[in-house]
C-alpha cells in the first residue's frame, strides 16, 4: 500500500485532477436534453472519457518515463515486489481520473433527479468507463517503459486519441471509447453482447499492455520473447472479438421493458423509465391539439415512443412520437417537434421508401407547414384550407408500415 499512497500524492494525475473535474462538468453541462432520462444522462456523462483517457495515458507515460529514474526502474523490476511500485503509478493515476469522472457523474445525477426520472439506468456505462480508463493507465505504463524520454507523454496521449478516431472508422467501432451518445436513448438500451465484447476487449488489451510492459522491464527466463508474442496474441483476439460482435449486433437495441401511458387530450405511451419525457410530450401535444381544435382535422390521439424496427410495429390507429429532448425549450417540446408529430398521424409504409415516398413527404410537409404557422400565430386556428385537409387525409389513411420479416 505504501507505493500506492506515495504515487497518490506524487503522480501527475493528482495535480491534473481539478482540471479533469472542470472538463467533466463543462462537457456534460455543454449539452442539453439529457437531464430528463437516466440512460442519456449517464452516456453524456461518459463523453469526457474521450479526453480523460488520452490525458490519463499521457500522464502515466510521462511519470513512468520521467519520474521513475533509470536507476530505480531496473531495481524495481528486480525486487520481488518491485513491479508493484510501477503498477501503483497506474493505479493511483486511475483513481484520480476515475474520481474526477465520478464528480462529473454526480453532477449529471444532480441535474436528472429534479426531473423525477423513473427506474434505474442501464448500468453498462458504469463498467465501460472505468475499464477504458484502466486500459488507458496501463497503456501509458507501456509507452513510458518503451519510450523513456520526454516524448512519452504526448506520444501516448496523441496515440490513444488517434486510435479512438481510427477505431470509429473501422468495424472495431466502440473500441477505446465509452458512452458519448449525442441523442436521446429513450426506447433504446445497450446491447449486452456489444457491451460485454467491448469490456472484455479493453480488459484483454490492458492485460496485453501489462504483459508487454513486463516483457520489457523483466526480460528474464529462457524465452523472454514469449510474453511479447502472448501480448500481441491477446490484442489480436480482443480486436477480432469486437469485429465479430459488431457484424451481428447494433450497439443499441429497442427496449423490451413494460410500457407506460400518460393520458390527457393526447395519450402517449412508452417504456416505463421514460415517464418524464412522456408526461411532457402528452402535455405539449395535448395543448397543441386543443389550440388547433378549430381546424376540424381528425388529430391522432395516441402516440407511442418507439425506436428502431419497433417503429414498424405500431398499430395503424396509433402513431410514433418523434422526440428530441435536446430541442426542448424550458422543458417544453419545440414547435418543430409538435408539428412534425401531429403531421404524422400514422406510420405510413411510404416513409420507409418506395414509389409513394415523395407523395408522403409532400403531404406531410404541407400539414407540417400549416400546423407550424398556426402554432406560431397569436390568433385562434380556423378551419384548415382544403389542400391541407386533403394532405392530412392522405397521411392519415396511407398504407401502414409493415414489420420486416
Amino acid at each position: 500500500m505504501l507505493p500506492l499512497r506515495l504515487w497518490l500524492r506524487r503522480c501527475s494525475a493528482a495535480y491534473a485532477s481539478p482540471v479533469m473535474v472542470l472538463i467533466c462538468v463543462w462537457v456534460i453541462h455543454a449539452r442539453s436534453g439529457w437531464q430528463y432520462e437516466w440512460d442519456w444522462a449517464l452516456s453524456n456523462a461518459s463523453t469526457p472519457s474521450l479526453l480523460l483517457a488520452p490525458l490519463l495515458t499521457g500522464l502515466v507515460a510521462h511519470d513512468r518515463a520521467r519520474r521513475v529514474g533509470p536507476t530505480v526502474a531496473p531495481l524495481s523490476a528486480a525486487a520481488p515486489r518491485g513491479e508493484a511500485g510501477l503498477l501503483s503509478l497506474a493505479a493511483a493515476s486511475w483513481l484520480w481520473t476515475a474520481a474526477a469522472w465520478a464528480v462529473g457523474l454526480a453532477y449529471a445525477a444532480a441535474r436528472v433527479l429534479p426531473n423525477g426520472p423513473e427506474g434505474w439506468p442501464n448500468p453498462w456505462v458504469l463498467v465501460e468507463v472505468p475499464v477504458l480508463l484502466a486500459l488507458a493507465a496501463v497503456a501509458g505504463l507501456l509507452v513510458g517503459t518503451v519510450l523513456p524520454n520526454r516524448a512519452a507523454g504526448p506520444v501516448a496521449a496523441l496515440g490513444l486519441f488517434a486510435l479512438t478516431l481510427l477505431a470509429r472508422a473501422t468495424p472495431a467501432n466502440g473500441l477505446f471509447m465509452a458512452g458519448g451518445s449525442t441523442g436521446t436513448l429513450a426506447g433504446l438500451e445497450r446491447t449486452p453482447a456489444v457491451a460485454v465484447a467491448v469490456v472484455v476487449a479493453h480488459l484483454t488489451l490492458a492485460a496485453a499492455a501489462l504483459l508487454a510492459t513486463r516483457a520489457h522491464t523483466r526480460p528474464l527466463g529462457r524465452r523472454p520473447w514469449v510474453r511479447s508474442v502472448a501480448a500481441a496474441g491477446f490484442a489480436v483476439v480482443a480486436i477480432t472479438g469486437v469485429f465479430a460482435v459488431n457484424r451481428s449486433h447494433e450497439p443499441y437495441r429497442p427496449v423490451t421493458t413494460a410500457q407506460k401511458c400518460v393520458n390527457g387530450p393526447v395519450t402517449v405511451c412508452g417504456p416505463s423509465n421514460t415517464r418524464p419525457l412522456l408526461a411532457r410530450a402528452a402535455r405539449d401535444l395535448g395543448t397543441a391539439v386543443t389550440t388547433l381544435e378549430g381546424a376540424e382535422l381528425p388529430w391522432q390521439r395516441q402516440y407511442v415512443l418507439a425506436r428502431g424496427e419497433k417503429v414498424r410495429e405500431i398499430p395503424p390507429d396509433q402513431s410514433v412520437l418523434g422526440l428530441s429532448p435536446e430541442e426542448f425549450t424550458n422543458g417544453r417540446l419545440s414547435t418543430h417537434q409538435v408539428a412534425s408529430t401531429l403531421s404524422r398521424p400514422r406510420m405510413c409504409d411510404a416513409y420507409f421508401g418506395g414509389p409513394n415516398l415523395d407523395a408522403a413527404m409532400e403531404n406531410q410537409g404541407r400539414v407540417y407547414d400549416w400546423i407550424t404557422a398556426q402554432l406560431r400565430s397569436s390568433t385562434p386556428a380556423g378551419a384548415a384550407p382544403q389542400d391541407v385537409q386533403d394532405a392530412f387525409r392522405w397521411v392519415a389513411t396511407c398504407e401502414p408500415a409493415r414489420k420486416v420479416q
Partner: protein
Amino acid sequence: MRARLLAHRWHVSVAITVVLGALSWLLRTMAVSVPGLTHTVPAPVLVAFAVVVVTLTPLYASFPELQRTLPGEQRRRTVRAATSVALGLAAALPAWLSAPADPSGPVPPAAPLALVLVAAGLVALVVIGDLAWAVVLVLAVGALIGDGGVNRPVTRALEVVPLPLLSVALLASLLVYATWGPRGSTG
C-alpha cells in the same frame, strides 16, 4: 550548432512536423467522425492539434538547472520560440489554404483556436514545464467536444475575440517564454 539542434530535439520535431504537414495536406478534404459529436471534424484541424504539440517539443528545458546559465540563452530562446511557431504555421498552411471552405459540420474556427493553443502552450512551458503538452491537449480536445453542445460556447467565445487581439496574445506569450524560459524538469 549540431549539438544544440540535437539537444533541443529539432531533428525529431522537424521530421515529424513535415510528416504531419504532408498528412494534413493529403487529408485536406477528409472529415473525421469523432465520438460524442453529431458532426464530423475536418482532418487538418485534428492534425493541427498534433502539430502544435510536436512543434513545442524543442522549447522544453534541455538542461533544466543549467539552462539559465548558458551564454546568450535568452536570445537563442527567442529564436527557438519564433522558429517553432513558424514551423507549425508552415506545416498547417498548405492544408488550410487549399481545403474546401466548409467540408464538414461546425467546429471551432481553426485559425483562432490554433493561436490560442500555441499561446497557451508557450505560457504552460513557463508555468508548468514538462506537462505543457497536456495543456494543449486538454484545450484542443476540450474545445472540440465542449463545442458539441447547442450553444457552441467555444466558437462563440472565439468569434467575439478579434484575430488581431489573439495575434497580440501569441506575441505576448512569446515574450513571456523568451523572458522567463521553460520551467525545469519535474523529475
